[in-house]
């Protein structure tokens, strides 16, 4: 059984290996600089967390299957094949100690995109049954129920109703023909549901039409995190089907980095065709409203000293870099950048499925010391971000280190400062 699984795992890795992967392995000079880029190494000092080492199983498969020399060696019985035990040994490195933040990919002097390699090596792990339990269970819940936290449409409806009541704005579910379809992350339904009310306020203010689907509302994609293109494809397809059925122009990825990557950049490749609609991060949509003059703010700018935490997948891996800064400028007076901000930001420690992996918790909290030192150097009262997973991770990290700081959602902050008397209702641009 496990031999068969292993074979499938190796096959899955083989299918993932493309010209860039081969070039990356050919290029690596073992300089070790990727270690200095990765918080799991810098905060622990343990060399096993060197990024390129995390994808060693993939390198072995590449070498044995796709190089003349490696093939010769394995035919002669001079090189060892990747075994079950290898993958067991690498599981922690591949899942617990990598958030796919891509900082190493931005630093490697020969240009290796190591996060891309980690994403691919996980395919082999997932297929051969070497994914971590937490992620595997979350993936099953997402496929069967529709969300990794097992949230059902009923729960969504309740939350939306209560947010509609609180904000005094009607939120119509499953409405065809609107411009925007808002997706949500589980965390935004369960913990941070004020986000829904905030979006309702902004949409109403800007005079935009929008809806939430009860059929496909979950934005996060466990398939991407666990490394299963099959699951990832199913999840993307659900969203695409609903978006095309409702005939929306734009699907909005909520405040969640991985969700954004999954639906914006990976999605079309997973389903094998371009979409008939656009995908934007909520921050992109807000920034467009700003540019179109559809947002009006009251005079009560936030004067608390605050900073912005860049979600890796939205910023470094997603390309939404300046938008949050422009928006913060509109509603905050005392905004300070962290050192290494923007594309050079350090991960919260919980991306890439690490937050779903209970076993990884102590390590994740340990490496939060990187965020702590970034924050210590600027002394702010609050940290704004645009990813609900980051938000959770940041809150846990701050608590662990006894730091007194607020973590805010940019959308919510913005909504609070809108001037309702100047709303451009119905004035759709």
């Amino acid at each position, binding site marked *: 059984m496990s031999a068969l699984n292993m074979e499938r795992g190796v096959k899955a890795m083989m299918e993932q*290996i*493309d*010209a*860039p*992967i*081969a*070039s*990356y392995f*050919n*290029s*690596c*000079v*073992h*300089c*070790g*600089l990727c*270690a*200095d*880029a990765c918080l799991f*190494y*810098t905060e622990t*000092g343990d*060399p096993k967390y*060197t990024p*390129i*080492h995390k994808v060693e199983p993939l390198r072995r498969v590449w070498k044995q299957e*796709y*190089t*003349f*020399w490696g093939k010769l060696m394995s035919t002669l019985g001079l090189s060892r094949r990747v075994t079950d035990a290898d993958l067991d040994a690498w599981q922690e490195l591949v899942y617990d100690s990598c958030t796919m933040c891509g900082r190493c*990919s*931005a*630093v*490697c*002097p*020969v*240009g*290796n*995109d190591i996060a*891309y390699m980690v994403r691919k090596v996980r395919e082999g792990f997932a297929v051969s049954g070497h994914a971590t339990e937490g992620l595997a269970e979350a993936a099953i819940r997402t496929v069967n129920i529709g969300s990794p936290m097992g949230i059902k449409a009923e729960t969504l409806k309740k939350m939306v109703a209560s947010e509609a009541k609180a904000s005094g704005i009607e939120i119509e579910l499953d409405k065809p023909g609107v411009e925007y379809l808002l997706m949500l992350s589980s965390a935004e339904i369960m913990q941070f549901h004020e986000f829904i009310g905030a979006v309702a306020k902004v949409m109403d203010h800007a005079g935009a039409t929008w809806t939430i689907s009860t059929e496909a509302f979950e934005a996060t994609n466990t398939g991407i995190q666990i490394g299963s293109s099959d699951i990832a494809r199913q999840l993307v397809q659900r969203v695409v089907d609903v978006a095309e059925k409702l005939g929306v122009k734009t699907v909005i990825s909520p405040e969640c980095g991985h969700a954004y990557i999954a639906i*914006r*950049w*990976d*999605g*079309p*490749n997973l389903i*094998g*065709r*371009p*979409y008939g609609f*656009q995908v934007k991060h909520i921050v992109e949509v807000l920034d467009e409203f700003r540019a179109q003059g559809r947002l009006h703010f009251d005079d009560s700018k936030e004067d608390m000293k605050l900073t912005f935490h860049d979600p890796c997948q939205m*910023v*470094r*891996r*997603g*390309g939404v*870099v300046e938008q949050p800064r422009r928006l913060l400028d509109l509603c905050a007076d005392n905004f300070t950048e962290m050192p*290494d901000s923007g*594309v*050079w930001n350090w991960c919260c420690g919980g991306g890439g499925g690490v937050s779903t992996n209970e076993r990884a918790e102590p390590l994740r909290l340990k490496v939060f010391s990187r965020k702590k030192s970034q924050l210590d150097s600027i002394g702010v009262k609050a940290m704004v971000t645009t990813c609900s997973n980051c938000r959770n991770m940041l809150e846990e990290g701050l608590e662990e280190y006894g730091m007194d700081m607020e973590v805010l959602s940019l959308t919510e902050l913005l909504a609070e400062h809108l001037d309702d008397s100047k709303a451009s209702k119905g004035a759709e641009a």
Partner: protein
Amino acid sequence: MTDMELLNWARGPALEWATIIFVVGVLVRFLEMSLLGRKPDLSEARASAAGGGWRTVWRRSIPAPGLVKQAPVVIYAGYAFHIGLLIALLFFAPHILLFKDVFGLSWPALPFFVVDAATVIAIVALLVLLVHRLVNPVRRFLSSWVDYLVWAVTFLPLLTGYLAYHRMILPYTEMLAYHMLSVALLLVVFPFTKLMHTFTIFVSRWYNGAVSGRKGVQL
């Protein structure tokens, strides 16, 4: 075998065979890579992939922010070695004559004292990098015997070239023969090891930069 016979063998058959292995080897490696191909990206690009690719090809030669402080030895010695090596390889008058012979192209040489200094810098930098590889936990952890082999075959041509030019330790002819042989060894080892990065670095940087580029990320 006299020194002269050794030299003639080294710069004759030895280098010729080594060059054949080098050229065929590198071509095979590139063929292996390109046969793997890459799926087209169907997502809607925000900016030009090629633009990002070319940008990263040159931009990645500059260390990331904060990196010099984190890894000063690798960065400084890395630069010193590569620049020293390039000067010694490309701007030493006898090397230029050889290139002219083989490729029909030539360019002005640098004064001997410059080439000499560059060689010393490259040699010292390589020694520093070797010690660092042995002592630093990350580098040591990443290294296998191949890394040390590659270090040695890179070091030997520099060392023997320097010694031959200065007529040190061995008679000139004999040392020159060893120089040629060490180059032959380097050429033979090249296609099978990370020395391939000399060429693939451009491919890797391009691919990486292209992915960022189409997302509109400037890295």
